[in-house]
């Protein structure tokens, strides 16, 4: 174990308090208990990631989002929960069954879509028979997380746990409410669209977003070995996030056939999300203050900080495109696709990649073999997603401007975006490279081919004395 094992504590307790051997052993035991289920989630996540990459040249990842995103997110969330509750995962094999069942549900859902059974509700395409399996599997998984919480030690509930507990509780409520209102007791007519977008946006914020933010709140302080800058800011950030982001769903329906107040309320809520974004951003920034050079060495930190910054950009873009004057142009264009990609990939996926670089070595007892592969993964992802978002945004704004001009034929607006979509295909190649590199590296780790070393894999040779202790 190395210096990264400094426990997370409230600011009142000095961060550099010596870590006792007992705690080290305890942590090793907790990690060992989570090994099989978490690795199973990760492995299936990566299989889905590759499958998704191959199947659709990446363009349609939203369709199979539950697979990579949720699997990877749940893997990280369970590990974090065990660590932070300081309790071993009891009966991990039952959780493995839950994971298996979940993936079976996803398989059923993807198969159903291919067979033409898509429900026709975006983000809820999986046919009802798959949804039932997913729900049962999820209940199994969530009860483990809640059980861990029940057996937690210590009074203090760390910031990450707020977000994770939120995610674990919000998701089933959301899913159940949407399924009920759309399939069991369907609401009438256009209300279905409202329920659909309410679900979709909350899935993005309250499930993926909450796991992403919670993970960043753990990884950043952990890697640099310094407590979070302010608990008060974190509290404000969490509650305003829960309150405002859950109200943003209707901004995608600007000028739709709905009462204006619904859409206005969502636009207002979107603007108010500036508060959680600013507090979370400030908190991370102040925590990192003076430690930014460590990003040169630590893979986890690099991915996580990139993800955290993307979260700020994502939210700022969300505010911009929700304004009626802007939505007039960008609604129904590629720009809204750019927005979803920013949230799901540049923010969530990058944070999860970061967490995997941290967690996997602790599960398999090996360190990542090639720093060069991690670097390749990082840069291919960054350039890939960066290019994709820029292309979609630029193309989307042009497309919107042309669409808004009735003297131009509609086909002109689709002509305009063609070069940008070619650029996007290029970014797809970069992301494909990054995914395969990562999968290969993960495979090496899984088969015990990582380095046996007590020092984590640094991206660059450590030059300065002293920084080593923090990485």
């Amino acid at each position, binding site marked *: 174990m190395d210096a990264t094992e400094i426990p997370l504590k409230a600011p009142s307790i000095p961060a550099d308090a010596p870590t006792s051997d007992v705690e080290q052993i305890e942590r090793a035991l907790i990690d060992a208990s989570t090994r099989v289920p978490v690795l199973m989630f990760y492995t299936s996540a990566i299989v889905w990631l590759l499958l998704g990459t191959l199947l*659709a040249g990446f363009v349609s990842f939203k369709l199979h989002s539950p697979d990579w995103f949720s699997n990877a997110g749940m893997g990280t969330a369970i590990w974090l929960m065990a660590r932070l509750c300081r309790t071993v995962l009891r009966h991990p094999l039952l959780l493995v069954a839950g994971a298996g069942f979940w993936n079976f549900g996803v398989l059923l859902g993807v198969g159903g879509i291919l067979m033409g059974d898509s429900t026709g509700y975006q983000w809820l395409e999986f046919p009802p028979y798959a949804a039932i399996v997913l729900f049962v599997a999820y209940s199994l998984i969530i009860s483990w997380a809640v059980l861990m919480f029940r057996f937690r030690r210590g009074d203090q509930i760390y910031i990450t746990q707020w977000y994770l507990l939120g995610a674990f509780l919000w998701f089933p409520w959301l899913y159940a409410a949407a399924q009920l209102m759309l399939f069991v007791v369907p609401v009438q007519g*256009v209300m279905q669209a409202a329920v659909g977008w309410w679900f979709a946006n909350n899935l993005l914020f309250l499930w993926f977003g909450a796991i992403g933010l919670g993970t960043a709140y753990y990884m950043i302080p952990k890697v640099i070995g310094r407590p979070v800058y302010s608990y008060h800011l974190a509290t404000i950030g969490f509650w305003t996030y829960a309150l405002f982001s859950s*109200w943003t769903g209707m901004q995608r329906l600007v000028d*739709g056939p*709905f009462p204006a107040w619904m859409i206005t309320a969502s636009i207002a809520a979107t603007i108010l999300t500036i508060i959680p974004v600013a507090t979370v951003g400030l908190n991370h920034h102040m925590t990192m203050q003076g430690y930014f050079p460590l990003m040169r060495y630590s893979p986890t930190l690099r991915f996580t900080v990139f993800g955290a910054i993307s979260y700020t950009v994502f939210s700022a873009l969300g505010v911009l495109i929700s304004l009626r004057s802007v939505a007039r142009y960008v609604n129904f264009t590629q720009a809204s696709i750019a927005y979803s990609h920013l949230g799901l990939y540049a923010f969530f996926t990058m944070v999860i990649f970061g967490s995997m670089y941290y967690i996997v070595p602790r599960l398999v007892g090996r360190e990542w073999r090639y720093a060069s592969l991690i670097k390749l993964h990082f840069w291919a992802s960054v350039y890939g997603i960066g290019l994709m978002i820029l292309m979609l945004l630029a193309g989307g704004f042009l497309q919107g401007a042309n669409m808004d001009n009735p003297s131009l034929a509609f086909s002109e607006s689709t002509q305009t975006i063609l070069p940008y979509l070619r650029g*996007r295909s290029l970014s797809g190649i970069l992301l494909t490279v990054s995914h395969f590199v990562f999968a290969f590296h993960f495979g090496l780790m899984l088969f015990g081919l990582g380095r046996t070393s007590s020092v984590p894999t640094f991206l660059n040779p450590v030059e300065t004395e002293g920084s080593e202790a923090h990485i």
Partner: protein
Amino acid sequence: MKGLIPLVLGIFGTFTFSWVGLTVIPNLQIGHLDPQMDEEGTDVYPAPKSGMTERGRHVYAANGCIYCHSQQVRADYAASDIDRKWGERRSAPRDYLFDRPVLERESRGPSRRNGISCSGKVARSFTRKSICFSCACRFAFSKASEFSRCIDIFCSGGRIAGRITACAISFARWGRSTCGRSAKCESWRRVRKSRGEPVWRGIKTRRATAIFSGLASSTSLFAAQHLNRFEHAGLSLSL
């Protein structure tokens, strides 16, 4: 933060607030509408949908049309939808009364709701740009042939058919077959051409008919625009 109970209560509270605010209350407001009719109780709007329409909606959903089409006409002050003749007025909640599922989503293409003029240009842009390069429905497209047939019914003409064939080939990877380049198809096309008849590459399938029924019954405008076209081409759609 200390104490699990305030945390869980807060999590539950924020969720409930959002659920009630954005789904339950709007449902009270617009979730229980009735069709409108004149004094004699005739001229009901919207009219209940036929079984064929239901089928059409299923084809529409199954093939991922939702990823590009909004089925919504925005107000004249908010967008140029009405100037583009995508509809005569903005959409209202009542328009969707019998729609299930409501196929209104993150659109990048024009509205399908109140009809769309089917020119060759649109067809080309439709197949080449929206679908081939960008659209998420590539994955959702269960059967390539199904899609190309829909398009065939939609837009005729040899040149366009050629374009569509190119596109259909890219879809064929996911589908079972396309008749586009087969010898049988080619010879059939030659015969049609020599007779001076419109060249159709595909065949009218039940699914393709269904999807048109689903879309066309939305408004009479669509039917007025397109029925002639279909009939001219020797197809009769029973709407």
